[in-house]
């Protein structure tokens, strides 16, 4: 159908943008700045546009008191400021890419019309996965994806209707929601299918975050499957049946993950990538000419693996939207890709990651090593200093940096972002260790934490440290392997907190008591942070004691499992 055939029902626009949260509005605003005369129409089925979707958990927790603070722009002010034609409560139901026609349903007036465009931007975002559990449609069961979802939960909390809640899923949304429910005085249970929360973190790193959640009052059940949502005769949820038992709940938040919202793109015949999101090139162009995609519905490329990667994050969406805005206005902007960086607050604990773990590097044929380094965010004597732990990963053969976890009560984002910058520019461990970073006691340690981690990595790459991670040691203990576990801290520290099955030989007495150690068995040595244990290991090696000798990476400070 052409515009001439049905003039009353076909609107014309140069650029049609579908979706109005992060990527869609960013593309709009940037395109208009680049080329003010461009005629742009933005269509969204939502009531709101341009809101801070990432802030929703903090709104239900009343950390952000007012929903209007999350609304960056209203549809009216956005239209006025940018000159874009904004159509909320309008849903694009079909696309004819050949004819460049979108069929749109006006949800307010229940009318169908068409928009003829020259260029199309698909920014349809992602949708929460709602598993087909019995009772999933009951009142009181919700995802936390839209502002409306958050407003409903917030209102119920404000009215005192929620005393108990179950959060299904321990990814970063689930973790943030659980924290904010606890802030509101709600008894909160979190169930996670995987062995630990934050499934894309290493086991032992995630376990530290999980301990923090438990200490702050969240009841966490891992390796646990939600089987059904229970309800009353009024059709309201009353609890969740899981493989770990039944939990009462006035509110059930489903946070098992999101999927790219690609139905429209798929039906129109656009190519999807291996992640299930829309395949794009570095200009954010899809498989069809003149059609762009950005945000949670589009793929990225992983900078280190070169493979398709799906990073449904506000940061990525805004950058992609900006690139699209430039390109629809006739420019040539490109996205280099992502590292899988993320950061999440878990009560008083901060958890960040980037790049590849040792296992992920192995999957693409890179032999990598990691070090786990407990350190501080600022000078340890300056008030407000806190511990942080860095796990740094580098390529064994070249020392090229590949990834990091930075977690702890202290400031982790600065260290993480420094490492991200280094990885992005292809730096080696040695180059990171020599950076001239800003220093004064209130801001950093004299040798800043990423540099400390790089120095430890240097030693490891030179063969000076043979380490074992907390997770690997936990597995050995679990499997009841035949090995000796020696704690070289002082007797008092050992008495207060020690790893089950360890024996204490303080470093000061180590040399005289070498006879107590098995000459022919594997020996694992632990201390507070991995410094004294490395010294003890060197001594054992020089005396040829032990079949193999390993130091516990990060010591007991980075040990999240059981102690006695």
């Amino acid at each position, binding site marked *: 159908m052409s515009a001439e055939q049905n003039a009353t029902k076909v609107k014309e626009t140069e650029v049609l943008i579908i979706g109005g949260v992060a990527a869609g509005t960013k593309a709009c605003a940037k395109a208009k700045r680049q080329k003010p005369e461009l005629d742009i129409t933005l269509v969204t089925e939502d009531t709101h546009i341009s809101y801070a979707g990432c802030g929703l958990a903090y709104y239900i927790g009343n950390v952000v008191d007012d929903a209007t603070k999350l609304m960056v722009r209203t549809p009216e002010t956005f239209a006025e400021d940018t000159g874009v034609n904004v159509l909320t409560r309008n849903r694009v139901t079909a696309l004819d890419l050949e004819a460049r026609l979108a069929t749109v349903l006006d949800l307010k007036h229940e009318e169908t019309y068409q928009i003829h465009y020259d260029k199309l931007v698909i920014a349809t975002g992602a949708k929460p996965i709602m598993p087909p559990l019995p009772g999933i449609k009951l009142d009181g069961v919700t995802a936390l994806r839209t502002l409306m979802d958050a407003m409903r939960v917030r209102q119920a909390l404000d009215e005192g209707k929620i005393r108990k809640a179950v959060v299904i899923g321990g990814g970063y949304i689930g973790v943030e929601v659980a924290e904010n429910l606890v802030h509101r005085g709600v008894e909160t249970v979190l169930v996670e299918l995987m062995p630990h929360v934050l499934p894309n973190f290493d086991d032992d790193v995630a376990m530290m975050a999980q301990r923090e959640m438990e200490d702050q009052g969240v009841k966490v059940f891992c390796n646990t499957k939600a089987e059904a949502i229970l309800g009353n005769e009024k059709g309201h949820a009353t609890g969740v049946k899981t493989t770990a038992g039944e939990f009462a709940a006035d509110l059930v938040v489903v946070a098992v993950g999101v999927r790219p919202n690609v139905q429209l793109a798929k039906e129109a015949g656009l190519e999807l990538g291996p992640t299930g999101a829309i395949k794009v090139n570095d200009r954010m162009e899809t498989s069809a000419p003149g059609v762009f995609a950005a945000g949670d519905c589009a793929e990225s490329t992983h900078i280190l693996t070169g493979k398709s990667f799906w990073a449904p994050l506000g940061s990525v969406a805004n950058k992609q939207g900006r690139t699209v805005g430039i390109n629809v206005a006739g420019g040539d902007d490109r996205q280099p890709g992502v590292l899988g960086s993320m950061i999440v607050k878990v009560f008083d604990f901060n958890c960040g990651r980037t790049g590849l773990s040792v296992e992920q590097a192995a999957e693409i044929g890179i032999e990598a090593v990691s070090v786990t380094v407990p350190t501080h965010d600022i000078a*340890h004597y300056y*008030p407000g*200093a806190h*511990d942080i732990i860095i796990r740094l990963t580098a390529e064994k053969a070249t020392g090229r940096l590949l990834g990091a976890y930075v977690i702890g009560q202290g400031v982790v984002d600065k260290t993480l972002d420094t490492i991200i910058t280094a990885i992005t520019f292809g730096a080696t461990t040695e180059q990171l260790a020599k950076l001239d970073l800003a220093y004064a006691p209130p801001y950093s340690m004299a040798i800043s934490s990423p540099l400390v981690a790089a120095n430890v990595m240097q030693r490891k790459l030179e063969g000076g440290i043979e380490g074992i991670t907390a997770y690997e040691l936990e597995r050995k203990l679990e499997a009841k392997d035949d090995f000796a576990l020696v704690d070289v801290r*002082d007797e*008092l*520290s050992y008495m*207060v907190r020690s790893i089950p099955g360890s024996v204490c030989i303080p470093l000061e007495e180590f040399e005289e008591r070498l006879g107590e150690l098995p000459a022919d068995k594997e020996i694992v040595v632990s201390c507070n942070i991995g410094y004294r244990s490395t010294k003890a290991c060197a001594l054992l090696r020089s005396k040829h004691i032990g079949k193999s000798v390993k130091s516990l990476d990060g010591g007991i*400070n980075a040990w999240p499992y059981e102690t006695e």
Partner: protein
Amino acid sequence: MAERKLDCRGMQCPGPIMAVAKALKEAAVGDELVVEVTEKSFAKDVESLCKKLGQELVSLDKGDIVVARIKKVK
């Protein structure tokens, strides 16, 4: 029954717990120690220490500064 204050703010692990153990040794039965610590892991450690030594942890405030009140009972 004396009360002794221990300022362990800014001290790193295991400094505070060692200071507490030493002060407990020096104290008389019935004395109380009030310890202020900025190192967060101290809260768990002092619970464990009191349990293992059989001393009474009268109160534990886990704010920005952890404050523990310990009574020597034996």
